[in-house]
């Protein structure tokens, strides 16, 4: 299958996108996939409620699911890339089986594996993750290619009776890395403390 020119149809840049998504985050807990998503979330402003991943590829959505079930009254947002989401694609089925209304998944889709040399990913070959989520049973799925739609999405509470997934098509721009703390124990305890759980 030939590579598509899908990425040319968006003007959304990843770092602006994440800054806009998180501008009015309130008490949202954020889990971000390894690589650029983690850098983007950190660049938008460090926060006790950010859980940065530096590894565990394919795990972001399921970490978000465990959190969303444990904290049903708080919004949980997973921000990850197309490569990380593709590795854990079965997780979309597992999320749909639970149907947590407080979970939102945003996939930053540049159709490439950015951290490893910009090899085209499956979404460059036509895989549409929003349609995968729809097929799994997500009531709310959306593909976003402009900032106005992104702002509207980010500032609107979830009206669906279950989880939401949005694919944000982004350009292949590659901003400088912004590196959050690498210490997973610190990041874990910081998030738990923000929810009222003391370190063990």
């Amino acid at each position, binding site marked *: 299958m030939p590579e598509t020119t899908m990425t040319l149809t968006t003007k959304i840049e990843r770092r602006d996108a994440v800054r806009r998504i998180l501008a009015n985050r309130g008490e949202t807990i954020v889990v971000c996939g390894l690589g650029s998503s983690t850098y983007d979330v950190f660049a938008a402003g460090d926060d006790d409620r950010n859980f940065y991943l530096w590894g565990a590829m394919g795990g972001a959505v399921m970490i978000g699911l*465990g*959190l969303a079930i444990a904290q049903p009254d708080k919004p949980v947002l997973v921000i990850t890339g197309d490569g990380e989401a593709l590795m854990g694609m079965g997780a979309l089925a597992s999320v749909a089986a639970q149907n947590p209304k407080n979970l939102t998944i945003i996939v930053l889709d540049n159709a490439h594996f950015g951290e490893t040399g910009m090899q085209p990913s499956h979404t460059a070959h036509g895989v549409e993750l929003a349609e995968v989520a729809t097929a799994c049973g997500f009531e709310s799925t959306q593909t976003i290619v402009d900032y106005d739609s992104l702002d509207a999405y980010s500032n609107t509470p979830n009206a669906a009776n279950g989880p939401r997934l949005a694919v944000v098509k982004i350009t292949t721009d590659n901003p400088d890395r912004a590196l959050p703390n690498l210490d997973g124990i610190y990041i874990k305890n910081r998030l738990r403390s923000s929810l009222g759980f003391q370190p063990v």
Partner: protein
Amino acid sequence: MNPQNNPPQRWEDDIFDCFVRHNVSQIPYVPDAGHAHLIRRVHHQPGMTPLVLTTEEEGVASSCGAWLGGQKSVLLMQSSGVGNCINMLSLVSNCNFPFVTIVSMRGEWGEFNHWQVPMSRATPGSFELMGIDVKRCDTPQDVAPTVDAALYAAFASEQKIAILLSQRLIGRKEW
């Protein structure tokens, strides 16, 4: 209910009772016949959330998410799924998450399907390579104290423990 009508307590019920006593609330699983009774009980218990998975590593990640949100989780799987978890166990290690999994063993006692044997043989070593302590239950009497001790150690001091339920305990699968 008349006590005479109660079904006899099985070792699977001992595991369930430990979950209740330790307030374990999220139970992700890839099913196995050896876990079927326990999974049924979890599905009928208010306050417990069973999570059916497409692959075992999902349950490693969801268990870490549960702890971030203040809940306790135990992953149920069979030995053939342990290899699927290897890289995700780096999350447990790097962040020092508490972790408990209960693994029903295939491929080790009168196994007809020898396709189960290689991963069965590699199961204890796989966990040990990733820094997970391995405990084993060979008799029904082993189960309650082993599960109770593991849940206590994991959630009181963020330890990582895999409990292997031997195929001799579970019973040979008849073909």
